[in-house]
């Protein structure tokens, strides 16, 4: 019969201890966060309503709702993605389909990595120097959207490149063999087969753009701006706008005597939007992956 020696028992004890420690670390990391988020929601409940979402801030930000900042954030997100998504997808197509493996391609890849690592406040300085002052756009939705677009660009390039690379090479070869050109192959074979991955990558950037504060603070977002309630075309491209993220920053640090529930409500709407968009993106990805044909 096999009996456990002291050594084996010691091994098993360490094994159980190691597993327990790693599990505890994982749980310790996630649990407090879930509790904090639940706490934010709990504090925000009294104020959350349709009126809160569709009313402008009132009484020097001490009352009313979040319509102007909410709509402003929507504008910034949509316009910046309209700019960054095509450029990012084309850039990824270049890197994955056209570029040869040489020093120039390596420099482009290095630039993408470094662009991704530029601190958001440096993007803000760049946006201020290049778009607001040099290009003469002034502080406007356009300047802020361009700044955000450049910030999200590297992430869109990276995620698109990954989905393009997951299309098997045999698909391309089959297409070339029937006489298609490079672009025809990309347009009719590569892009349709990777569109799901590209889309989830772009959707994910919605949440990142919506949450950014520093880059819009000096390029287009303002402390307060009154717009007509319920009108989704209330902003113009060259207007300044309010933004949800900056609104949360101002009412929780700059304005005294704000009713307690107001910043919590704003935080929860911002957080809820971001998490919702992410959940949609993740669900889409899981669903499309399960339908993949290869």
């Amino acid at each position, binding site marked *: 019969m096999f009996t456990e020696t002291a050594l084996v028992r010691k091994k098993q004890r360490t*094994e159980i201890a190691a597993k327990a420690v790693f599990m505890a670390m994982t749980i310790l990391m996630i649990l407090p966060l879930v509790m904090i988020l639940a706490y934010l929601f709990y504090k925000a409940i009294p104020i959350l309503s349709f009126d809160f979402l569709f009313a402008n801030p009132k009484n020097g930000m001490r009352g009313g709702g979040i319509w102007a900042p909410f709509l402003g954030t929507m504008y910034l997100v949509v316009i910046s993605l309209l700019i960054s998504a095509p450029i990012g997808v084309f850039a990824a197509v270049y890197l994955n389909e056209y570029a040869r493996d040489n020093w120039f391609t390596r420099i482009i890849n290095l*630039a993408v990595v*470094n*662009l991704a690592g530029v601190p958001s406040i440096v993007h803000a300085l*760049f946006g201020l120097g290049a778009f607001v002052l040099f290009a003469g756009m002034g502080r406007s939705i356009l300047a802020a959207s361009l700044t955000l677009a450049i910030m999200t660009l590297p992430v869109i390039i990276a995620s698109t490149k990954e989905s393009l690379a997951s299309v098997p090479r045999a698909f391309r070869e089959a297409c070339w063999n029937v006489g298609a050109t490079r672009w025809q192959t990309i347009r009719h074979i590569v892009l349709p087969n990777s569109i799901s991955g590209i889309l989830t990558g772009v959707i994910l950037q919605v949440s990142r753009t919506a949450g950014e504060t520093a880059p819009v603070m000096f390029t287009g977002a303002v402390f307060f701006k009154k717009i007509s309630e319920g009108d989704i075309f209330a902003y113009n491209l060259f207007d300044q706008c309010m933004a949800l993220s900056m609104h949360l920053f101002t009412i929780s640090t700059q304005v005294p005597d704000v009713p307690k529930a107001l910043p919590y409500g704003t935080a929860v709407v911002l*957080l809820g939007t971001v998490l919702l968009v992410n959940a949609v993106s993740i669900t889409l990805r899981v669903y499309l992956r399960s339908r993949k044909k290869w």
Partner: protein
Amino acid sequence: MSAKRRFGTLTEPIIEGLIRFCGISAILFVLGIFFFVFREGADFLVTKLDVKQFLTSQEWYPDSPSNKRYGVLALLAGTASVTVLAMVIAVPFGLGAAIFISEFCSARLKEIFKIVIELLAAIPSVVWGFIGLTVMNPLIIEIFNAPIGLNVLNGGIILALMSVPIIVSIGEDALKAVPDTYREASLALGATKWQMVYRVLLPAAKNGLLAAALLGVGRGVGETIAVLMATGHAVQIPDSLLDPVRTLTATIAAELGEAPVGSDHYQVLFIIGILLFSITFVVNLVADLIVKGIKGK
């Protein structure tokens, strides 16, 4: 030649040109960022800035009417203290979680954890700052009996929570990159999972794990709004974890709105931007080289 075909031969070079242009756009943007940030601060940098004072003095008095002094040592210390504390917390926890998720838990649980971590990574930094302000602040005052809860400790914890998702996902990628044959070989020799992790996986994945930690540092140095809200506003070299500090990023965010365009103060803020850009550039470059090193093998 049919009309459609002719249209194709006409548009194709245009589209390919566009694709090529977008491809090199990343280089243009990086150069553009450096150029425009530098351009706004260049005048002061070349003519008036005392570089030695800038880097070694802790006297940051940009508003003083008689004797303006621009020393960023205290701000550097603020950034360093908050980032170091964040990494001391986040690196062990992040790597521990990466090991658990990658090696110890079931496939189903792994999927769930990965989704949760992805969601955590999406929480906006201003919301983190708000958590620092409303949740951590009273907690720190209560527990440590501190006069103010907005300090290095608060900023460090918030920054740690923010960096953990990046460290976990990159760390997990690094562990996934270790071939399964390594795992099978060590298990076949009778090693327990812990022995396999400790003796085989960690040495094999150490570059990737190092890169994960470095990217966490890059994030920490560059984070703005969350540390602005959570660290208090005192420009000083901290003596303890309970001292409030001010980081490089927070200084730009807090003062840029008030500095008149083109003034010395305004230009110095852009020079701080160049400093930040350089720091994160180096950190990211090193992390990238380490990752490339793994793939090259």
